[in-house]
């Protein structure tokens, strides 16, 4: 049984991606019996290409990936270089964790509420400092250049990369940075040239995942991104939902173009990676010291902490809007509170939030069980994950969702699976599993296996030892991985929409659908519920080991023998 686990896991990670891509090749080249077209033609490509503003969409989706990754990685690296080992650094981690748990859509709504011309920031400054008594006619959110989208992505990716980087730090020796400082390098430059290369080698794949994600994200682009023309991914989604079925073939062609855009962005990043490495090495070997880095440290500190703060402030603002009564510009606060929106939406909220929770719990439970089976199999058969296995793990995070989910929905439509809650759960599992594995592997491998040897020698079988010793001792990381898996599932917009075929509305699809409407009270209610669901599960799962192991000192977080 256990030996089957890795095959099942690999099948779940690779199968949908490959099958999904295969199933759009036909429609992209004009062969789609499902939509009443047979034969071969490049018309779908031509149609996509000649649609107004197509190249603008392609260009936007291309540059935003590497630029998002570059800015967020640079800030996180500078911040770590400047503050690693300080109390501020640990404080930042506490601030970042809730931001990571928050779904992208809710975070994007919060930012929009902050920075829009009628948003909270301008309200704070108006009319005293700005003189505005009406919201100015600025295109700050949904600006055609995509700056708001870039901003939203950077702010949300900073905490993610920060956590990824912190997880990689113990595998490097931070004392190298001290050596470099003794050799006369400034604090930031010392860390960047001595520790960062080793760290980067560890976090490369998550950084690639950020590049790929930013080139193809849909929900954040619908909330913060440009309207006409939108990003390529949003454009594809519109074609997919067009009542004219032949437009599905255009969508399929554009999905293949999206795959090319994402791969090109990754290629550009790869080239940039090597260029930066060479440049850095050259500067380091020529003996440049860069000692005056105080402004850089201040910039890194302010922007990294600022990013987390903005997302959390956005969350507070969402909450306030959901219960606000009359709230005229430029009032900083609403004149009265009104729970009417909550009352009116209560039934619908319970329905869609309940479905989201059911899918999230199912997907995360399956993912945790399967990952544990894989890890136990690795332990029993003394298997070390190869580089290819790691790449497999990241495959669903590197291939754009919109490119393969469309094909997957066609496949499952043929099998009559689409639109069921099981199909949606299965699609979520593809994205939940990599994160659950990455989060569980470290504590699993750090476990002192002599406990297992001791238990075996007391006469217990392998399975018994797994159930009575290893799983209970690792209860805390297992529950944390479950909560993270749940949070990932709640954040999934595209799989829910496409695989659910519109018949499985969740809190996420409903919230994102409100983006174009601009009813802030309604958005506030749905976005707040979406943001709070992961927090509730994180809190509950943290409570279980705290109660269960309250009298077990060695199982408290941070226990050192």
């Amino acid at each position: 049984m256990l030996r089957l686990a890795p095959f099942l896991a690999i099948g779940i990670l690779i199968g949908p991606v490959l099958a999904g891509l295969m199933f759009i090749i036909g429609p992209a080249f004009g062969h789609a019996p499902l939509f009443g077209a047979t034969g071969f033609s490049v018309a779908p490509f031509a149609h996509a290409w000649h649609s107004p503003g197509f190249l603008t969409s392609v260009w936007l989706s291309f540059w935003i990936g590497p630029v998002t990754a570059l800015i967020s990685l640079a800030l996180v690296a500078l911040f770590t270089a400047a503050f690693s080992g300080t109390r501020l650094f640990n404080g930042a981690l506490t601030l970042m964790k809730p931001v990571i748990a928050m779904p992208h859509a809710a975070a994007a709504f919060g930012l929009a509420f902050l920075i829009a011309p009628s948003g909270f920031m301008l309200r704070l400054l108006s009319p005293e400092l700005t003189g505005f008594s009406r919201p100015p006619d600025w295109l700050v959110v949904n600006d055609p250049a995509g700056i708001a989208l870039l901003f939203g992505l950077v702010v949300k990716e900073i905490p993610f990369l920060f956590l990824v980087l912190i997880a990689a730090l113990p595998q490097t020796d931070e004392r190298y940075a001290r050596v470099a400082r003794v050799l006369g390098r400034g604090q930031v430059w010392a860390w960047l040239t001595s520790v960062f290369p080793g760290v980067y080698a560890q976090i490369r794949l998550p950084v690639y995942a950020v590049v790929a994600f930013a080139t193809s994200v849909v929900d954040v682009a619908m909330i913060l991104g440009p309207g006409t023309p939108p990003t390529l991914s949003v454009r594809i989604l519109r074609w997919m939902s067009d009542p004219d079925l032949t437009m599905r073939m255009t969508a399929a062609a554009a999905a293949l173009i999206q795959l090319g855009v994402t791969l090109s962005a990754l290629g550009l990043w790869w080239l940039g990676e090597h260029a930066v490495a060479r440049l850095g090495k050259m500067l380091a070997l020529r003996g440049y010291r860069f000692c005056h880095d105080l402004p850089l440290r201040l910039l890194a500190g302010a922007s990294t902490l600022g990013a987390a703060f903005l997302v959390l402030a956005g969350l507070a603002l969402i909450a306030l809007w959901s219960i606000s009564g009359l709230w005229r510009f430029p009032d900083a606060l609403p004149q009265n509170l009104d729970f009417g929106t909550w009352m009116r939406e209560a039934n619908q909220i319970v329905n869609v939030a309940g479905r989201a929770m059911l899918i999230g719990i199912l997907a995360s439970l399956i993912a945790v069980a399967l990952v544990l089976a894989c890890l136990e199999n690795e332990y029993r058969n003394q298997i070390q994950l190869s580089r290819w296995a790691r790449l497999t793990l990241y495959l669903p995070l590197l291939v754009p969702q919109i490119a393969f989910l469309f094909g997957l929905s066609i496949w499952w439509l043929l099998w009559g699976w689409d639109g069921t809650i099981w199909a949606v759960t299965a699609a979520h599992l593809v994205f939940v599993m990599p994160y659950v594995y990455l989060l569980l592997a470290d504590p699993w491998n750090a476990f002192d296996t002599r406990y297992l040897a001791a238990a075996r020698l007391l006469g217990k079988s392998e399975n018994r030892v797994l159930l009575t010793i290893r799983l209970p001792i690792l209860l805390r990381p297992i529950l944390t991985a479950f909560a993270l898996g749940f949070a990932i599932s709640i954040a999934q917009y595209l799989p829910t929409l496409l695989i659910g075929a519109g018949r499985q509305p969740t809190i996420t699809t409903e919230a994102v659908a409100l983006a174009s409407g601009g009813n802030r009270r309604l958005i506030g209610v749905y976005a707040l519920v979406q943001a709070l669901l992961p927090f509730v599960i994180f809190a509950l799962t943290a409570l279980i080991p705290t109660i269960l192991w309250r009298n077990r000192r060695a199982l408290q977080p941070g226990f050192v023998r």
Partner: protein
Amino acid sequence: MNPSANDRGLKLDHVKISKGETALMAINAHIRPGEVLTLMGPSGSGKSTLINAISGFLPKVFACTGTITLDAVNITRLPPERRRVGVLFQDPLLFPHLSVLENILYALPPGDTGAARLMRANELLAAVNLEECGKRDPATLSGGQQARVALIRVIAAEPHALLLDEPFSKLDAQLRGSVRELVFAEVRRRDLPVLLVTHDEEDAKAAGGSIIAL
């Protein structure tokens, strides 16, 4: 019929351990019940590898030839839980999620009623003067107390041989003597064959058996 006196105890019959092409160690020995055989050698001399081979945890990169028998039973290919070999590790390794008493109960062989098992566990605790500590979290015990619980936990499983993998090396000098005495008194009382692995001369002297230097 009982196995003849000559078959009893732990027999290492031409046991050779190698990693790839390199031979790590070879040993041919018969430890009779109540006897202690001490292996001495610097770290990296394959002492712990031999312990792993006898207890059934030899990593796949190693190869082991020869036969290991315990009381006339060939255990060379048996899974660890069926070898009836007890091991005291360098650390006490008390299960951190179980209480002290639960750690002992975990080790007792199945069978018997709950009440009988509880009585047996408490007897063992009393034998090392820890009858008051049953309900406690093992992490709150002192180093010497943890070492004593680790000893009775191994004994509770009723092993037919005991392997000691530098079990005293992490105790401070004062404790080491008393814990060592306790362990050796216990194994003599139970007439167990013992393999002691150490790099401490004192341990070897206290064990009182024959010594093989690697």
